[in-house]
């Protein structure tokens, strides 16, 4: 970096005193100032540098010069671009890879076609990219990019060099072409000042519509259902992500993803099939909730630089159209379109009132949960009360039953008295040695054993039991 001249120059000029005449030695590195005066000077004139380490002046001067010079002269342009390249190299490998890869990918996709045809496409692409980078208006950029898409598509269809390619390969080439051009020119053509202004307008508009809820829009999303509210969050996430993607195809993918989440949310909210009647309001609701950054810029960017196939009649085009519709609706939204009185709408817009909460939309998840828990608790309380009542009733029932039973029992007992013959008390004089006992029973076989009735007879001191196992019960 250092030329041979520099050190010698420094050597010669170090003897000079500080330009500020403060008494210290100046230095050519600090434009003839001493260190402290240079610092002062720096702070005043180049407010952007907060470096404690002192920058190399020639570089700073060089950058300032080139950015001040108008872009028209081709010499400075080349210089600037060259510097861009250098800067990117310094910035890190990623940005450099971004610059190299798109062409490489495009070349790769062109692999099967003949060399001269592929080279021509690459050359055309490079021309267009260079033209855009030379600072033409966005409209012109869009025109030449669309022209490029068309001419390449035509070449692929008609020229001999590409005759070996099949349908999907042609499509891949067109996709890569789009990707290549868009990645290389993104910083130049994305969100020009006019779009930025529109973005701000839209963002403020969405902010002023913060009071709109799903009910007022007829969005048909039931946020109290966890599945629906989860899908809604994913949809919001997807549409916010839109701004982080660089190519139209990636951006359109984001819109698709967002739409799919919205459909999930709608399906979770009701059994009806998802139709445009509820999809569009839901999308509007999501856009209002998300307030995605640079939405208008993204919309214009896709319209300007997406390849024509994407915005034809396909699914991506459909969802993109819906998003455009949603944005238009938001921009034009008034009291009529919400079918509410003008005064009411104005009051909401001025922030003097907030639409009546139908008990479904809450500021945040916690409030919603709290409300939900309150309802559950209330239900539990009611349940407990009724349970206590039932317990009480059951108790009285039991008491009643017992009393009733007792009463009935006594009635029955009274009705059917049982008189038992007293058994004859054994003689007091009978000896205890057992000599008076009757002789042991001798088993006798009787044919009519089974027919003996189950009764117990008390006959004297002896008793006979029939052969049945059951012991007779006496009450």
């Amino acid at each position: 970096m250092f030329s041979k001249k520099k050190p010698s120059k420094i050597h010669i000029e170090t003897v000079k005193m500080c330009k500020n005449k403060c008494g210290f030695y100046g230095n050519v590195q600090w434009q003839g100032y001493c260190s402290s005066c240079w610092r002062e000077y720096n702070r005043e004139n180049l407010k952007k540098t907060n470096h404690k380490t002192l920058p190399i002046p020639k570089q700073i001067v060089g950058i300032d010069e080139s950015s001040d010079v108008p872009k028209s002269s081709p010499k400075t342009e080349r210089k600037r671009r060259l510097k861009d390249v250098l800067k990117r190299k310094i910035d890190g490998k990623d940005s450099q890879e971004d610059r190299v890869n798109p062409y490489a990918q495009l070349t790769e996709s062109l692999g099967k076609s003949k060399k001269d045809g592929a080279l021509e496409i690459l050359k055309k692409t490079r021309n267009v990219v260079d033209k855009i980078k030379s600072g033409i208006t966005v409209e012109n950029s869009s025109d030449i990019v669309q022209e490029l898409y068309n001419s390449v598509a035509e070449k692929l269809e008609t020229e001999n060099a590409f005759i070996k390619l099949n349908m999907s390969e042609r499509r891949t080439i067109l996709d890569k072409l789009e990707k290549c051009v868009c990645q290389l020119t993104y910083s130049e053509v994305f969100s020009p000042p006019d779009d930025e202004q529109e973005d701000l307008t839209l963002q403020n508009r969405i902010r002023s519509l913060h009071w709109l809820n799903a009910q007022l829009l007829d969005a048909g999303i039931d946020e109290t259902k966890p599945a629906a509210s989860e899908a809604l969050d994913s949809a919001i996430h997807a549409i916010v992500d839109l701004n982080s993607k660089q190519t139209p195809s990636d951006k359109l993918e984001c819109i698709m993803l967002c739409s799919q989440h919205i459909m999930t949310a709608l399906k979770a909210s009701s059994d009806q099939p998802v139709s445009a009647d509820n999809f569009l309001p839901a999308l509007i609701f999501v856009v209002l909730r998300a307030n995605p950054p640079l939405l208008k810029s993204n919309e214009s960017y896709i319209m300007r630089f997406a390849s024509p196939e994407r915005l034809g009649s396909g699914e991506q085009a459909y969802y993109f159209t819906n998003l455009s519709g949603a944005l238009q609706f938001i921009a034009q939204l008034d009291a009529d379109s919400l079918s509410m009185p003008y005064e009411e709408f104005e009051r909401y817009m001025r922030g003097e009132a907030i639409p009546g909460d139908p008990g479904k939309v809450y500021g945040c998840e916690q409030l919603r949960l709290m409300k939900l828990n309150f309802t559950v608790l209330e239900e539990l309380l009611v349940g407990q009360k009724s349970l206590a009542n039932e317990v009480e009733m059951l108790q009285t029932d039991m008491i009643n039953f017992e009393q009733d039973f007792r009463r009935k029992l006594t009635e029955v007992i009274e009705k059917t008295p049982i008189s038992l013959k007293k058994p004859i008390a054994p003689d007091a004089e009978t000896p205890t040695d057992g000599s008076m006992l009757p002789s042991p029973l001798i088993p006798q076989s009787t044919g009519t054993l089974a027919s003996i009735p189950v009764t117990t007879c008390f006959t004297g001191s002896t008793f006979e039991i029939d052969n049945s196992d059951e012991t007779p019960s006496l009450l």
Partner: protein
Amino acid sequence: MAGVKAFNFKVVLLGEGAVGKTSLVIRYIEDKFNDKHVSTLQAHFSTKKVNIDNTRVNLAIWDTAGQERFHALGPIYYRDSNGAVLVYDITDEDSFQRVKNWVKELRKTLKDEVSLAIVGNKMDLEKSRVVPLQDAEDYSKSVGAKHYQTSAKTNKGIDDMFRDLSKRMVEQAKNKPAATPTSSRTVLAGRSDILVSDTIPEAQPKTGCCS
């Protein structure tokens, strides 16, 4: 689709809410009808392949929100469409009036390049009809549209209607090659300044029918 003669058509469905647009599409795409609509099917964007006299036709059917409040968004939906299906409910006079409004708009913006199908749905409810058939047919004739009667519930007339419309769109496209869907590349949705480059029209006819 290179080399194969195939048409890509965009068909936009217009009509008031609850006239049965959704049921109509579901019936056509899946041959299903459910009074309770217990279906996981999405009806707002659907595609269908049709064969018309050995010509392959790919229909992309765009459903639109029918609520009055979204009426102003119509143009961004029907822009570049090859056909429009305008649905009304034969038991609802207002829905027929809405159809008339759509027709006026469509003729104004798309001129004769769009094939119109005016569809009286819910013909199974013939008893409570309020839009006289003769009136509807006369009106359709007067605006260069074709009138059809369908019932999504009993699956009557839907397939024929789409088939007939496809036929008419094919004829339209053959007469005017520039009106094929891929010509839409120059007129992009929402763009205020329409891209008219001298070189583009040349590319259209070639890519038109075989995009």
